[in-house]
Every structure is written in C-alpha cells, then in structure tokens.
C-alpha cells in the first residue's frame, strides 16, 4: 500500500506538470484579455495532431518536432486572436466565450474530417519500458514531459518578467487603456499573448502524445481539467496555475487510487465548484 501511495504521488506530480502547462495558457489568456478560452481542449488536440504529422512525415520523435509544433501553434493562436477575437474585444457579455466555443467545434471536427476518428499513436524508441526504482516505476515519457514543462514554464516566466515584450503584456493585462497611452499596441499584444497561450496548449498536446493514443476528442478530457486548475490557481496567475496543476494532478491520482478511475473526475469538479464558491480568485489570488 505504501508503495502505491508513493507511486500515485509520483504519477500525479508528473501528469500534473503537463496539466499545469496547459492551464498556464488559459490563465495567461484570461489574465491579459479576460477571455475564457473554451477552445483550449481542442487546441491541445490540434497540438497533438500537428506533432503526429511531423513525427510521421519527418520520422522524428515528438521532442524533436516540438519547436515546429510550438511555432505553428503560436501562429494559430495569433491568427485566431487577430481574425476572430480582436474585432469583438470591446463587446461585453459572453460573445467571446461563445466564439471560442465555436472555434472549438470547428477545430475538433476539422480534425475528425482530416484524420478520421481512428486512434493514432507515436512510439518513441527506447521509451516503451519504464524506469524501475525498487517497487516504484516511472513512466519515461511522463518524466521527460515533466522536465520539458519545467524548462518551458521558467522560459515563459522569464519572457514575461525580464523582457520588454513581457512588460508590455503585463501592462496590457493590468490596464489596457493605460498601456495604449504608453504607446503599446494592445491589439498586437493580445495576439501575442493568445499565441503564447495556445502554444502552451500545443506543447502539452505534443508531450502527451507518447503517453496515449490520440483521437479528435482527446483534448476534451483535459479541457475542463485545465479550467479547474486555472481557476484553482487564480485566473491570470501563472505560478498559481503551476502549483494548482501539481496539486490537481496528485489529487486526481489519489482519488483514482482510492475511489476508482471513473469517480476521480467527480472529485475534481467538486473541488472546482468549492473554489468558485469559496474563493473564486483562487489559491494565490487576492481576497475574493
């Protein structure tokens, strides 16, 4: 039993890292533009299929294909923001949320049309076996994904905090009007921020490929989970998303261990509702 508790902790942490990265994208997008991106799950799937195509066409591993996926996903995000979301940034209400839902429907079904509903998979040579440490096994792709996530999260943190671009993004997020007065082209910053957010979803998708078979609805499983993490960590709060991702990953692993896999979703949604009710600003957010 002790071994399985430790095992679940490790599995949970490793998966949580990937969730964290995807959720970080949602949080960034919400932080800068106050848009709840319902297309995030579908974009994770897009990331998976772009990586899959790179792998099969070029015969490389998902990790080698990652830079291509990142660039393409950034461009997709940039274009979505520029064409679809920028024109309605001023319009209040729920039009932005619904628009992202519409985009999600289009993307998910476009993948279905192009790739059919058949499951696809990419195997990475040498990654089929797990690392054994006593009674604990560590899944290699998940470990590598975790390391990638750590590096990329730090990279995004540095971009946001140490560069002029990051300063402009943060300025737009706190005060769009003020940022405009300071000469920042807010519409362009919005595109870049959405691009980075979508890129996060894409990277998460790419890193998940070696751990599972992919289908056009694969990303959906992560969609609501990412919202839970982003809200739990405090929408707009990058570090909150990372910490919440790890926590939710572990909670998920433990609830799967003690309650069975099918009920573990339930635990996460209950946490979600409790967070919304008790502290909608999240773990690291200001007082609600």
């Amino acid at each position: 039993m002790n071994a399985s508790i430790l095992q679940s902790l490790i599995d949970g942490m490793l998966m949580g890292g990937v969730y964290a990265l995807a959720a970080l994208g949602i949080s960034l997008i919400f932080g800068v533009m106050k848009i709840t991106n319902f297309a995030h799950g579908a974009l994770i799937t897009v990331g998976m299929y772009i990586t899959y195509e790179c792998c099969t066409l070029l015969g490389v591993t998902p990790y080698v294909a990652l830079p291509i996926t990142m660039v393409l996903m950034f461009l997709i995000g940039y274009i979505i923001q520029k064409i679809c979301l920028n024109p309605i940034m001023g319009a209040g209400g729920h039009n932005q949320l619904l628009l992202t839902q519409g985009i999600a429907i289009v993307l998910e079904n476009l993948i279905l049309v192009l790739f059919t509903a058949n499951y696809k998979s990419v195997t990475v040579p040498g990654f089929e076996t797990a690392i054994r440490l006593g009674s604990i096994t560590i899944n290699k792709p998940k470990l590598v994904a975790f390391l990638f996530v750590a590096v990329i999260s730090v990279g995004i943190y540095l971009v946001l905090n140490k560069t002029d671009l990051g300063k402009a993004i943060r300025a737009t997020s706190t005060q769009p009007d003020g940022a405009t007065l300071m000469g920042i082209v807010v519409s362009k910053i919005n595109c870049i921020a959405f691009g980075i957010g979508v890129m996060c979803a894409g990277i998460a998708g790419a890193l998940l490929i070696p751990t599972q078979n992919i289908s056009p609805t694969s990303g959906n499983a992560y969609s609501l989970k990412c919202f839970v993490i982003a809200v739990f960590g405090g929408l707009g709060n990058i570090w909150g998303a990372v910490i919440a991702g790890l926590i939710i990953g572990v909670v998920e692993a433990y609830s799967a261990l003690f309650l069975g896999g099918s009920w573990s979703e339930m635990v996460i949604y209950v946490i979600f509702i409790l967070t919304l009710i008790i502290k909608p600003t999240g773990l690291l957010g200001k007082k609600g």
Partner: protein
Amino acid sequence: MEKKNTGTLSPLLKRGINTTSGGMSRLQIIIVLAVSIFVLLTPQFLSSYRLNLVITILTAAYFAQCWNLMSGFTGQFSFGHAAFYGVGAYMSSILSVDYGVNPWIGMLAGMLAAGIVAAIIGYLSFHYNLRGDYFALATMAFCEILRVITKNTEFFHASTGVTISYSKDWKQMQFGGKEGYLYVAFIMLAAITFGLYKIRKTKIGLYFVAIRENEDAAKALGINAFRYKMTALIASAMLTALAGTFYAQYYLYIDPTICFGNSVSVSAITPCIIGGTGTIFGPIIGAAIIEPISELTNALLSQYVGLNMVVYGLILVLAILLMPNGVVGLFHKLRAKKQKGE
C-alpha cells in the same frame, strides 16, 4: 468579469420598454399566425422524414427559448443547461422503464427534480455572487458532475443508456405517427413563447431585464436580485426538463452523453445567438435557420464525418462576428437605418 457600468441603456432594453407599451404590430401578428398555421398543416403534405426536421426545429426552438428566459432575459449565462435537460429525460425514463410509472407523471417528476437541482445550483452560485464567466463555468461543472454520476451508477443504467419501449399509446406519451409529436412540440413552443411575451410586460419581466442590464443598479433600486435570478433559473430548468422528457419519448433512447454532453448545452445557446438573445422570436428564427442547415449539410456531406459540425461551428462564429444581436438585431438595425434615411 463584470459588465462595465456605462450608465446608458442598451438598445435591447430600450426596445424592451418600447414594446411593453406598443405590443406587436399587426404585420407581426399576421406573420406569426401564418407561420403557425403553416407548421400545423405540414403533416398534410410533408413526408415523415421531412416532418422529423420540423419537429427538430420546434424542439430546438423550445429548448433555446428555455435558455433565453434565464440567460437572454435575466442575463445569467448558463453553459450547462444540459443538466436540466438530462434530469428531465432520465427522471421520466427511469421511472417508466424500471418502476412502471406513467411518463406523463414522470414528466412532472422530472420537472420537479430539475427545479430542485436548479435551486441547489442557483443557491450556491447566487448566494456566493458568482457572475459572468465564473457562473458559466460553475453551471458547466454541475452538468459534468451529473454526467459522471449517471455514467457510473447502475441505477441510471450507467453508460449503456436507457431504452424505452415503444407502445404507440398517447397515455404512454407516445403517438402513432409523427404528427402527434409535432402538435405537442408546437404547443410547448407556442406556450413558452406566449409566456415570455406576456411576462415581459409584467413587473417581473422588467426586473429580469433590469438585472441583466445592471445588477448593481437594480439592487440599488430595491430589486431583490437573488430572488428574481432564482425564479428565472428554476422556471427555466423546469421547462427545460420538459424538453428532455420529450426527447426521450420521441427517440426512445438516452445515454449520459446524449443528455448531459457539452454539445447539448451548446445547442440551447446557438439558436439564440443566431436569432437574437433576449428577444421573443430570436430563438425560433435561429432554430429555423441552424437546424435545416445542419440537416442539409449532414445529408449532403455524409461521406465526410464531422464536416457538418464544422459548418455548424463556422455559422456560430460568423453569427457572433457579423451580427452580435442576431437576425432580430440586424432587422432592427436595418429598420433604424431606413427611418433615418426618410
């Protein structure tokens, strides 16, 4: 994410006030009557396959109208209306299949159950003042919880779903031909639309719109926002449950995804967006546009699985981008332009 308080009334609200004094124009009444008579006569000249489309339009419009009551008029944006739809469908089906309860009674039980679920969701959300996107996410999470429960419980037949036996008896809420279903769906839609039309002229209707436009201002004027939001939510939920029961009795099969899936919640919203959220006829116009297109693309592009949904999504995206107030809003804009021209 709260709406900015700009201090001005939105065009929708202004229109709401205008129509409360004026009512429908003679032309509008003639159009409504003509369309109603046409729909009621369709069984005389349409094939069974085509009638199915008419029934789909009517039920989609009814479902959207339920959503419209709560989200369009009162401004509480629900992204999990499938929750109430599913509760209605499951309640009547489980009661009739496993316990031999008559579906008409099951329908009432479903409405009651959906009302209770809505009261719980509403109390938790409104008491803790969830607004905007946060409320939308909460409704979505509640809906998912219901899906997980039905999917994992033998009592609800888990993921196998519930099959309802066909008896052709109106006492069992089943009708010999399609026309029976068509008349029932028409009555449901006509009743809710008439109800919305009437309620808009009352105090409660104006309170609903006031809360949508500016909740804080409405509160400051002494409106008990919590009570009216609860009223709208519970009423909407109970009426939605009816749509769920109707679906189950018409298609005779339900499962967790058919009832509680995200696409069900979206299907309540899309007609409103296309036709015009918060208007009386918007959801009906929207359903009459999106359902035939959906059906047509499904038939024409059937060799490409999923392409019809791509079209569906594109229409949703384009509707939001090109006509933010829907067809009805577009119509009003054109009329305003014409009047200005004169």
